[in-house]
């Protein structure tokens, strides 16, 4: 088993942290995992992405050209990864930040209004966790419970009071994506 995931958005949207949470969840359940950021002279407001590879064997390349799974938290990321996604793959799109629908019909595009859902929960910074929850609907190798445990185990103590809302964000994202899957033609 090997799955590659790219998480992309603006700097400040929690792209890198979202990927780390996924990497922790994979590690804690005994899988091999790599997390690699796009690094460069980047800053808040610029683009950021990270690649997470999860496998049950020694991982080769930590980078992937055509990922089967991706999260696009903004329009530039949607434009970029819609074209790069592997055929048959799943792209989670933050609907709150895009103004167009998908162009490809050989991939699954799951639209999730991450910002609105996060604001309903009461903290717009949780939008990355909403997207992560949605991603899990297409990643059976990592469960919602695994990610919750990873957050609990690795979040710094000073942030522990934020756990319940993070769990809620994950769950809401997951449930929203499930509904989208149910709507999609088989």
């Amino acid at each position, binding site marked *: 088993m090997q799955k590659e995931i790219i998480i992309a958005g603006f700097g400040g949207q929690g792209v890198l942290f979202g990927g780390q949470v996924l990497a*922790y969840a994979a590690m804690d359940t005994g899988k091999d995992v790599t997390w690699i950021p796009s690094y*460069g002279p980047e800053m808040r407001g610029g683009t950021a992405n990270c690649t997470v590879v999860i496998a049950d064997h020694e991982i080769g*390349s930590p*980078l992937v050209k055509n990922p089967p799974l991706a999260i696009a938290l903004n329009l530039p990321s949607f434009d970029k990864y819609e074209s790069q996604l592997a055929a048959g793959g799943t792209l989670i799109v933050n609907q709150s930040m895009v103004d167009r629908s998908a162009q490809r019909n050989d991939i699954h595009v799951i639209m999730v209004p991450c910002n609105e859902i996060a604001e309903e929960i009461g903290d717009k910074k949780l939008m990355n966790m909403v997207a992560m929850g949605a991603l899990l609907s297409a990643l059976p190798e990592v469960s919602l419970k695994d990610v919750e445990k990873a957050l609990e185990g690795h979040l710094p103590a000073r942030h522990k009071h934020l756990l319940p809302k993070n769990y809620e964000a994950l769950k809401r994202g997951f449930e929203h994506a499930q509904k989208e899957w149910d709507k999609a033609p088989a």
Partner: protein
Amino acid sequence: MPKELWKGNEAIAEAAVRAGLEAYFGYPITPQTEVLEYLSRRMPELGRAFVQAESELGAVNMVYGAACTGVRVMSSSSSPGVSLMMEGLSYIAGTEVPAVLVNVMRGGPGLGNIAPAQSDYNQAVHGGGHGDYPRIVLAPASVQEAIDLTVLSFDLAEKYRMITMLILDGAIGQMMEPAEMPEMKPVHRQDFDWATNGTMGKRERRLLTSIYLNPLDEEQTNLRLLNRWKEVQANEVRYKEYFIDDAEIVIVGFGTAGRVALSAVRTAREQGIKVGLLRPITVSPFPTERLSQLTGQARAFLVTEMNMGQMLDDVQLAVRGRVPVEFYGRPGGVVPFPDEILNEIKRIASSPTADHTDARDAWLTRMTERV
């Protein structure tokens, strides 16, 4: 120790601390800065020496001084910064004191860029400072290996009184992987019989120098270094093999280029191609003997690097023309994707006759056609 998610650069820093690093001197440069940043907090916390020097020249000469006292000392930098350290490195080699230097390589030459590259292979393995001196060079391909080799580098440097370099590309420095740290070892300062650590009025003065004005003395020094190097070659070669048993095509790649090749090898195997990978862990000493042996079973070698073909020369020296050696590289800070290497494997697997064109020329032609 349980596994934790470690970033390559920080993992190297913590591993060095646990191996008993007593003094660190460095200067910030991307994509290595996290080593220095981490140690700037960690070393003072433990009452150990940390200095952000005024430049790489300052840093390497501080390393030289500390090394003469016999403590575990390290510096780290990235390509342009390491170039600045080369004079000091030669002095350290000439003085026969142990020191560890980490190079998190980036695209070059010149200022280049900050993307992952392997273009300092020749500088680390064959060249660098002036004069005739061997050095140990380790090339980790994962965060765990970076930790293990950091610890090993101090042992090797002391055992052979030699510079030990870790060369890794920016990708390994920046990536996170689950890894296990060794136990924290108390600092154990060895009582080396060469260290200039103060006579306390109890023993004869010692002299450490790299000046041998009489050429016959310098010649003796050079031969002493070479004899010591022979021991390193006999005892310290390390590499890892994947799918080699029945391999007819053998890929040779180190660091990130090696692990990208592993992905390509797995896919090629699924397609029934008998291909394996040899990933050198020590690039100096080089696994020459093992590669030479493999000429008995392989019908072709493919060298993959993130440069224009530097380790390629060492593979060719090991193979000595007995089997064709081909090359695929991405220089300038470009990391190859597995499908690029897979295409090379398929091309070699499907070519009925051996190609005896110069490997680098043939690669350059293919690259030019592509671009």
